[in-house]
């Protein structure tokens, strides 16, 4: 004790990764990668410099957004986005409940589990735009392609989180329902469903929000919604119309987020 008192040691923060070899090789490896990556990033600075002026105009456009001159286009696009959001979220929820049940290891047999997990993996790996391109090729232009795309994307998100939630449920409650002699459907309805319902509602509200945001880009590939109008506005350098559309999107997302916060607080 006296030895430590006479020679005070300096305290150092413990490192995040204990093994020094791993620490240094990770650090050097990531540095080398970063140098290579930044090296392959070709930036045409003169083009960027020229663009700054346009960027400034775009930011200035937010001070005087133009809602009026293209109002009918904006209104139609927005309505289409909202309609696609509502229907696809509803359809997505209806389809993802059985798939979510199938993807939960504690209630589904192995073959069903593998099939459902496969569906989820495919739906999650493909970006909405890629799915939308295929759907437009198959079903033609218009909101139906967007509806199918968003429903498909909803399945991957909702079933995965629902399945994880079902796997986390309390076994004893489900067991108790089973002990009363309940049939399979009753077992799910009274043993599992009450436990996952609050989270399912919360996730559905969250997905509604995501679907709206995604519906704003589907128009780029012809799948309906506000994206087409926005794309045209950018192409024509009509930044004040683009600013108006972006402001509307942000406002709707904020309202949806507030609404979903209220509903989630109520059910949880």
């Amino acid at each position, binding site marked *: 004790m006296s030895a430590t008192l006479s020679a005070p040691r300096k305290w150092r*923060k413990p490192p*995040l990764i204990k093994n020094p070899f791993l620490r240094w090789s990770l650090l050097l490896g990531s540095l080398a*990668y*970063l140098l290579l*990556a930044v090296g*392959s*990033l*070709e*930036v*045409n600075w003169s*083009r*960027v410099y020229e*663009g*700054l002026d*346009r*960027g400034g105009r*775009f930011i200035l456009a937010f001070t005087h957004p133009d809602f009026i001159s293209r109002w009918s286009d904006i209104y139609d696009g927005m*309505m289409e986005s*909202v*309609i*696609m959001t*509502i*229907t696809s979220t*509803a359809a997505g929820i209806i389809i993802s409940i059985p798939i979510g049940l199938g993807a939960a290891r504690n209630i589904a047999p192995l073959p069903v589990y593998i099939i459902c997990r496969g569906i989820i*993996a*495919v739906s*999650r*790996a*493909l*970006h909405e*735009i*890629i799915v939308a391109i*295929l759907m437009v*090729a*198959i*079903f*033609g232009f*218009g*909101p*139906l392609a967007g*509806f199918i795309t968003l429903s498909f994307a909803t399945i991957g998100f909702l079933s995965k989180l629902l399945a994880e939630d079902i796997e986390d449920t309390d076994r004893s409650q489900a067991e108790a329902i089973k002990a009363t002699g309940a049939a399979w459907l009753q077992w799910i309805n009274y043993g599992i469903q009450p436990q996952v319902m609050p989270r399912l509602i919360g996730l559905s509200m969250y997905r509604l929000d995501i679907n709206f*945001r*995604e519906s*704003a*880009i589907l128009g*780029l*590939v012809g799948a*309906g919604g506000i*994206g087409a109008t*926005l*794309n045209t506005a*950018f*192409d024509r*350098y009509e930044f004040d119309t*683009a600013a108006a559309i*972006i402001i509307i*999107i*942000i406002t709707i*997302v*904020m309202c949806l987020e507030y609404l979903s916060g209220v509903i989630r607080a109520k059910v949880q």
Partner: protein
Amino acid sequence: MAVSTDKSGQKVWRLSDRNAQLARWFAWFVAVAVIMYCWQTISEQTTWFFVMDAPNIAGDIASRAMPPKWPYINELWEPLWDTINIATIGTLLSLFLAVPVAFLAARNTTPHKYLCRWPALLIIVSSRSINSLIWALLLVAIIGPGIFAGTIAIALRSIGFCAKLLYEAIEEIDEKQVEAIKATGASPWQVMAYGIVPQIMPSFAGITVFRWDINIRESTVLGLVGAGGIGLQMQASLNVLAWPQVSLILLVIFAAVILSEMVSAKVRGAII
């Protein structure tokens, strides 16, 4: 839960009482009516004749797309490398802005409740509401097509996501540890470095890897609007209807996304 007594004096158990049940049915009624109205609108804008034909078209495309054109993969390595770079550099760039924004937005670390917190929340919401493809569209119009526009687009979109999750993590820290550091007479920066940062470090790393994984997926499509990456090849192949190339690109994207998801799950598992 409600227990009522019926005429013969028998107790009847129901999930909810009558008013709650009526309210529930009314809510269902409204929801179904709204959805039906929306569906009708979509249906009116759809040419059902084409939709009836969809299975044939899908079969036709599938038969053209199979088998994938394997030799084409040699032209995909470079765009794939670009795609990964867009995601990685974009994520790193976004962190430079997301960290200060998160500290400004968290209730317990913000310097001022209104002057700093509200602008920070506004930044988070605007960045989150706008898809990275829209950011890319905008940046391509402003600074020209290329990888750089894609990287910035990814970075701008990620700020809101990272800052939101990070500020929620900051708000959930244990105040006792901060108090303890303060009690030693530490300056505000030292409190930050020794009281707050060690507590949020695991969630910070988790959020970063999680977002990186999402960004890989997003950067695969940025090329569709000219912002670099493997999407450029896809757009080019789609334009000339080269379906065997499209199917190969889809397979490559699928593999890249699954791999990045595995890496991210592994890293997050190691941290938490």
